[in-house]
Structures are given as C-alpha cells and as structure tokens.
C-alpha cells in the first residue's frame, strides 16, 4: 500500500452560530467567531489517497485526475466563498474546520475511482488543523 498526498489552498469566510442557542450562548461558545459578518482564513487542504502501485503506470492514482476532482468538487465550491451562505452543507451546519473536513471527505470519497480516500486534512491556520479518516 502506498499513500499519496496532494495539497491545495483556498480562501473563504465563515462564522459560527447555532440558531438553537440564545445570543449570549452563541457568544459564550463561539467567541469572536460568532461575528455575523464573518471572517476569513487561507485554508490548506491535504488529500491523502492510498492504493497499490499500478505496474503499468507506476502510479497509485493519476495525479492529474485527482487534482481535477479536487478543483471541481472542493475549490470551485469553496474558494472565495462565504461558506455559511454559499455552500449547501453549511446552510444548516456550522462551518467549523471539523465540519469542513467532513464535507470535503463526502464530496471526494464517491468520486475517486482507482485509489481509496485515506485522510482529509484541513489547516485553518498553520497552528490549527483537523484530520478526518471517514470514521463514523
């Protein structure tokens, strides 16, 4: 088994708010992230796939195809967007780094043909990142 990781970057804005919480509760739980006008990050995405090396191509996965899938499924939807308002998953789910990693996994898992998705890692900043391995 060989693991291959492809990186991408996207920039987006978001805010944290749970409509079931009172305004005080929202401010207490989410702090500065509760500002309804949003704030932004430069996210770094790392997608790791795993598989056997194809003896003919020497590839685990065709990197060109992986790059295209990441662009089509993730970057076109999330780059330079206000996540809460423009990305369907986050109309009713808080766009935390955890939930972004899960949403990206769900977008990618079904689209990968030859290799299997192993890990989605999303860096919100260089000092904060989330890994999702598809665990329930």
């Amino acid at each position, binding site marked *: 088994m060989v*693991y291959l990781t492809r990186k991408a970057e996207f920039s987006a804005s978001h805010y*944290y708010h*749970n409509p*079931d*919480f009172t305004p005080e509760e929202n401010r207490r*739980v*989410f*702090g500065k992230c509760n500002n309804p006008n949003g704030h932004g990050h430069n996210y770094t995405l790392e997608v790791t796939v*795993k598989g056997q090396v194809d003896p003919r191509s020497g590839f685990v996965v065709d990197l060109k195809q992986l790059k295209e899938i990441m662009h089509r499924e993730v970057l076109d939807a999330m780059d330079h967007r206000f996540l809460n308002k423009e990305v369907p998953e986050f109309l009713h*789910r*808080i*766009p*935390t*780094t*955890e*939930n972004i*990693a*899960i949403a990206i996994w769900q977008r990618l898992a079904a689209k990968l043909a030859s290799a299997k998705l*192993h890990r989605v890692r999303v860096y919100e900043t*260089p*000092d*904060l*990142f*989330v*890994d*999702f*391995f598809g*665990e*329930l």
Partner: protein
Amino acid sequence: MKAHLSRRYLFSASHRLHSEAMSEDENKSTYGKCNNPYGHGHNYTIEVTVSGPVDDKTGMVCNLVDLDGFIEREVLARYGHENLNTLREFSQEVPTTENLCIQIYEIVQRGFHEAHLERVRLEETMMNSFEYAGRAESAGSFDREPGQ
C-alpha cells in the same frame, strides 16, 4: 462522526543533557555539545492532537478556547522561559525532548477531559521532533490506519 483536531503551541526553554548514572567522559561522548554545563536553549513547538465525535450543536471536537486555556496554564506557564533541569520532574530524569514529550502527554492526559488525547508531538528544532501516544505500543501519526 469522529475527527482529529491538532493544535500547535510555541515555548522557549533551556536544558542541559547530563546523566548522573554516567561518568564525565561518557556524558561527553553521549550528549556532545548538549552536555555543556551552562546549558543551552530551544524554541520548542508542541503539537497536541485530540479526537472525538464532532458535536452536532457546536460543530467541534472540543472547544478550542478550553484547550488553549488548559495548555497555557498547565504546560506553557510551566515550561516557557524556564531552565528545565531546575524543575521537579527533571531532578532525577534527563530533560531530553523524549522525556519532555512524555511529561507533556501525561499533563494533558491527566487534566484535559473534553476530548480523547491521541498524541503529543514535540519539535525541538525544525529538524528534530518526537511523538508520544501513551504507554500502548503506538507510534502516533505513523499509525496510518485509525482505530488500530
């Protein structure tokens, strides 16, 4: 759904690697420059990884403010700008980054209960890093398959 959250923190401290169990010559040959009696320092980076189900109400594994507060109080305030050799935990033990990594893991494991501690990774310099994931035979992030 279960996710892993990692957070990185910086602190600076000094230490000297010297073992009472070794002769002067053995200390010098084992620890080299790190045996300099006056000590030397590093900018350490701690990477703490916790895991757990993502809370439906908050979208979080654990509240970052709470994790940051805990690490600030219990780890950074304890080790930041200190000479590690003067601290109680290193009175009998050599303050290598291996041992410091284990100490930090134990502090978080004992005191932070909002999420499961997966591992602590400690970078001594950009070239050297150490990971500890508890007593069980586990190599932390080198376990490529989660749950094993």
